[in-house]
């Protein structure tokens, strides 16, 4: 666990409550007029030169959205969002879509370099561990700016490109799968996303292919007053495998920013998708000013028998998090997993969890959730596990642990468990604990500072989940955890 030391060094080297990714980049952009109506939806669709079916699909979603109301059941509290006071489209101004890295605006490349994300394939190839290459799709203000390693992936038959591009290059796949997991009518934010989504990643792994490298998307919000609506679609065909990583950051702003993404995963027979997220959107300042409103719908459909979907998430950012990555276990013997670390500090509010919907026979699922609350934050785990009448032999194991730091935060666990057949076995375990003064004193007596001691104890608490992350992400996540908890030790 060498990263602990590194974590602590990193924490010490920056000021309390300093959000490292809070810079704003001055890059010329093209925007749609403020507000939302059918014309704006058509504008976005036209900008992407979309086929008519997709324009109609968006319009259908928009009309539906007009009839819906914001959900209020989550344990979060935020000022009313004026949906007419937002921009729904913003794109960095470039002549045409970049064909290679050389054509990408150097300012943009600088942004990603600042974030520590290498986009130059050469740089990556020259790295110390070339066998651990990661193909990156960089999404800047909802527009994909560059995707690396495309050629090499194409050789394996893997399609990894912006979804706006896939609409043109692989229309049959997009039309077949888009909205097939999260329908346009699903919920308020997903429906809004369906109407106005701008870009995101598209992945298709052909039958029997094990994707030769990790795929990754980095989302960066830059523009002010601009809603962010990414759409990600990943399809793993029969017997294929892919590991996908997602990272997010945003500038520090006094206003709240809306982020309403949709992620759809589909696995066919014997296929597996491992989806990892390190969410580090700007959380707002210690008084709760600013920060991202993160209303995200993520769902995976284990369509084929023996297929598997695994969600791993490390959530440290956002002022409000409303997010429940779920698995529909449709195929017999399919498996869903959810591993989560959700950290809240300052005045952050988290309402997050998962759903495991058991439909097929002998389906299994596992949920490991670690919530850490510090400062004046509120952290809620909300999860649903259900089995259909025909889902005989369904099994779930759920473990929800909450850790409290200090006396002004809250942790809440809200599990919903519904079993409709007698052969189901669902287990639920939950604990709530607090970092005790005794533990802190013990660690400090052995030479660790208060920050080092807290980082060590928290890292121990989240260990089960960290082990699920790909190596590089685990190290990143560990650092992020320490940074997020800064100033939480009194």
């Amino acid at each position, binding site marked *: *666990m060498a990263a602990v030391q590194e974590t602590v060094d990193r924490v010490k080297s920056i000021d309390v409550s300093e959000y490292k990714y809070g810079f704003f980049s001055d890059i010329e952009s093209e925007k749609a007029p403020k507000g939302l109506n059918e014309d704006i939806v058509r504008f976005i669709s036209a900008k992407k030169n979309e086929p008519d079916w997709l324009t109609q699909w968006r319009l259908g979603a928009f009309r539906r959205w007009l009839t819906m109301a914001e959900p209020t059941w989550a344990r979060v509290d935020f000022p009313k969002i004026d949906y007419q006071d937002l921009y729904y489209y913003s794109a960095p101004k470039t002549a045409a879509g970049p064909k290679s890295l050389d054509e990408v605006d150097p300012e943009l490349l600088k942004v990603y370099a600042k974030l520590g994300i290498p986009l130059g394939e050469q740089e990556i190839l020259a790295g110390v561990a070339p066998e651990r290459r990661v193909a990156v799709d960089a999404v800047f203000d909802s527009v994909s700016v560059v995707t690396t390693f495309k050629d090499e992936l194409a050789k394996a038959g893997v399609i990894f490109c912006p979804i706006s591009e896939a609409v043109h290059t692989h229309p049959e796949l997009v039309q077949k799968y888009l909205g097939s997991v999260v329908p346009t009518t699903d919920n308020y934010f997903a429906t809004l996303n369906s109407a106005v989504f701008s870009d995101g990643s598209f992945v298709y792994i052909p039958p029997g292919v094990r994707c030769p490298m990790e795929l990754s998307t980095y989302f960066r919000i830059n523009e002010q007053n601009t809603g962010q609506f990414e759409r990600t679609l990943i399809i793993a065909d029969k017997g294929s495998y892919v590991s996908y990583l997602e990272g997010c950051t945003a500038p520090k702003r006094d206003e709240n920013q809306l982020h309403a993404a949709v992620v759809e995963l589909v696995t066919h027979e014997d296929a597996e998708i491992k989806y990892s997220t390190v969410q580090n959107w700007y959380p707002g300042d210690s008084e709760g000013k600013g920060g991202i409103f993160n209303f995200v719908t993520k769902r995976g459909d284990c369509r084929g028998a023996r297929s598997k979907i695994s969600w791993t998430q490390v959530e440290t950012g956002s002022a409000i998090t409303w997010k429940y990555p779920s698995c529909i276990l449709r195929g017999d013997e399919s498996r869903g997993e959810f591993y989560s670390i959700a950290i809240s500090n300052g005045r952050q509010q988290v309402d997050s969890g998962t759903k495991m919907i058991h439909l097929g026979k002998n389906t299994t699922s596992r949920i490991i959730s670690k919530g850490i609350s510090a400062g004046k934050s509120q952290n809620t785990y909300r999860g649903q596990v259900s089995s259909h009448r025909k889902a005989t032999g369904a099994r779930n194991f759920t473990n929800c642990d909450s850790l409290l730091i200090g006396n002004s935060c809250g942790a809440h666990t809200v599990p919903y468990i519904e079993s409709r057949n007698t052969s189901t076995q669902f287990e639920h375990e939950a604990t709530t604990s607090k970092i005790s003064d005794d533990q802190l*004193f013990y*660690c400090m007596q*052995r*030479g*660790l500072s208060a920050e080092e001691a807290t980082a*060590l104890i928290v890292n*121990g608490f989240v260990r089960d989940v960290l082990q699920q992350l790909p190596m590089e992400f685990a190290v990143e996540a560990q650092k992020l955890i320490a940074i997020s908890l800064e100033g939480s030790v009194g």
Partner: protein
Amino acid sequence: MLEIKNLTVSIDGRPILDDLNLTVRDGEVAAIMGPNGTGKSTLSYVIAGRKDYTVEAGEILLDGVDLLGLEPDVRAARGVFLAFQYPLEIPGVATMTFLKAALNAQRKQRGEEELSTPELMKRVKAGAEKLEIKPDMLKRALNVGFSGGEKKRMDILQMALLEPTLAILDETDSGLDIDALRVVAAGVNALRSPKRSFLIITHYQRLLDYIVPDTVHVMAKGRIAKTGGADLALELEKSGYRDYVADAA
């Protein structure tokens, strides 16, 4: 050398230590005995820097430097070690990881190089063997699911590794069976050195049969009521503390 001068300590306005004076020379093993509630554990916590107490007056000097006002981790790096009566559990943190983090934190504080992992492993393994700690315990989370005796041995292992100049043992014998007591005592005796002072806090003579002290202090009502040699402990075993409680009052 530890010098405590005119130390007065209270908790929530209630006096616990009252103008206490105590000196432990380099290489000396001093035992502190006394009835329950006389402030023995408070003394150990105050030396180590626990925050629940209010120091009303006095000084705690370690090699001439006043420890009061320093954070517990700074005191640790200066050579203070406290073996706890009830060592804490740290779930999810492997014992070896904890040992490495603690040792390197102290070294860094003192401006020394970090110890390499192979060197650390070597030292830990050598220490563990002497204390009859099985190698697989080092991979387990610190003190989680350890027996009382295992926890105490783990604390002594940390003491051996951290090489303090002042080692305080707070009721280390509590909850130990005779075999575990022997192992722990042997571990402590092996660490006796001309440069290291020991402060051994105990209710009973029993521990002092195995760790023979140079001096014995009887503590009553928040101060040192009597000081003598190892034979004073034997005397106490016969007569009890009643006289001292009455004397001090």
